């Protein structure tokens, strides 16, 4: 290990504090017995109780959950196919379509889908949001699955084919079980991205449909109450659990070294 100056430690601690103190404040104030997010008054669970009775927020959470499940389900199937295709074949168009939505500004994806749905007379709502989420989740799943395939012994699949398995059976009984951790990690990642997405949802949801991020947005734009802290804390907890699960299933995702 190299020698490190105390200044380096000090600077790094400042940077870590910068990353974590804001989030901690949100969590701490969710238990604060005061309407103002200004100073600590006393402990309460009132904001969680308010949240449990907030019909609009619960509906938003339900919508987010449904969209998240559908979007992660479909994008996992399509993304796994894309990861497999990019690993096995030399393709031109597919890799561009996989990486482009990740590389271009999010707002472009949002507004172009808005034009697209409106021109097709497609009613904006849960379905349009789910379709949009699938489009941006496929790439992330594909990348995770391809990384998993890159670390896999492809001769196993070939052996299965030589022994007479059809391509479908070789995939079903050999490849799929081997890449399963990558597939599940991709699904969890897609679910997290979907449930957290604000920008693309903002443009494709239309007036009547509300997801959790949209509900949080209108609350902090109009009237901030510590109920926002409560819903934020729960959402952070959910995201944290999903990401830890994804990281355990596919360590290469979060490791400092290895194939990316």
């Amino acid at each position: 290990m190299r020698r490190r100056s105390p200044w380096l430690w000090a600077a790094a601690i400042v940077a870590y504090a910068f990353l974590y103190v804001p989030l901690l404040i949100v969590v701490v104030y969710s238990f604060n017995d005061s309407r103002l997010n200004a100073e600590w008054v006393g402990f309460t669970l009132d904001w969680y109780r308010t949240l449990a009775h907030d019909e609009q927020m619960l509906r938003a959470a339900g919508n987010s959950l449904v969209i998240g499940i559908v979007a992660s389900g479909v994008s996992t199937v399509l993304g796994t196919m894309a990861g497999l295709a990019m690993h096995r074949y030399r393709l031109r168009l597919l890799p561009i379509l996989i990486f482009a939505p990740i590389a271009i500004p999010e707002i472009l994806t949002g507004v172009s889908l808005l034009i697209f749905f409106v021109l097709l007379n497609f009613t904006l709502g849960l379905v349009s949001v789910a379709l949009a989420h699938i489009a941006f989740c496929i790439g992330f799943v594909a990348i995770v699955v391809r990384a998993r395939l890159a670390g896999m012994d492809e001769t196993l699949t070939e052996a299965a084919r030589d022994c007479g398995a059809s391509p479908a059976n070789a995939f079903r009984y050999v490849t799929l079980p081997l890449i399963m951790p990558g597939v599940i990690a991709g699904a969890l990642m897609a679910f997290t991205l979907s449930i957290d997405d604000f920008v693309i949802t903002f443009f494709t949801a239309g007036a009547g449909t509300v997801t959790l991020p949209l509900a949080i947005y209108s609350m902090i734009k109009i009237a901030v109450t510590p109920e926002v802290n409560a819903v934020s804390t729960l959402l952070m907890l959910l995201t944290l659990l999903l990401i830890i699960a994804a990281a355990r299933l596919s360590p290469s995702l979060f490791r400092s070294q290895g194939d990316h």
Partner: protein
Amino acid sequence: MTARASKRLARWAVTAPPLLYLLVFFAAPTLIMVLASFRSPAEFGGLAPLVDEAGKLDLNVDSYVRFVTEPVFMRVFAKSAGYATVTTLFCLLLAYPLATLIASSGRKYRDLLLLLVILPFWSNFLIRIYAWMIILGPNAALAKLVNGTLALFGAPPVPLLFSGFAVLVCLVYVHLPFMVLPLYANLEKHDQALLDAAQDLGANAWQRFWRITFPLSLPGVYAGAALVFIPALGIFAIPDILGGPEDTLIGNLIKQQFLETRDWPFGSVLSIVLTVAALVLAGSAAWVARRGARRDA
């Protein structure tokens, strides 16, 4: 079925579904938007009919001309670029010590320290903006401290929230991980022997950093700068929530065109200019970084 035909079938079975989906829900909308930028807005928003009553085709560059000739739009672009530049610089300043520390840590702690940088990135984007609403709020400790200090010098109080300052702090906050990761990936590969040799030859810590570590880290710096600058350029939620009336950036302008003014052609022009600018920047950053890497090799 012959083996060859079955192979081709397998290839199509896995390639076609995702390809088709992305063609319909990504490529087609993007192309439609490019076309929309050459059309005229309808009276009540959206697009005018492609062929009008006189049978004239509605294709023009009016919206592009408007973007170039009305200086206010260029000013918004310049302002966005300025915010993104300042964000990139501050991210670099904060990320460098962090990446150095992680790169020089033992194997055991490296993954953990890195995970700690990535983790906040996975919490909801709006929550991270909201956190700064609390910290910078007029009744919070920070505002009281700042304005109390200002009062000592007889200066009038300043609002921290709904200001350019709030926008910049939050821009740095949400983009910091994007700078740390590529920088770390680069620093981790540096050869300690170079620094030892420099020390033996009498270079002090300052010289070792500026003559060896920093030049070698430039590919990582360029990659990080691109990853921060591009999303920062197109952001709309942060100025929308934390900014004052002065802090209208490109993202806010695009949102206005689509949801308020409903001038789709002009909104499309703004989105296309933003995307082209972002892609050109990303491309040149990649080019510079690759050239740097080749020179080092």
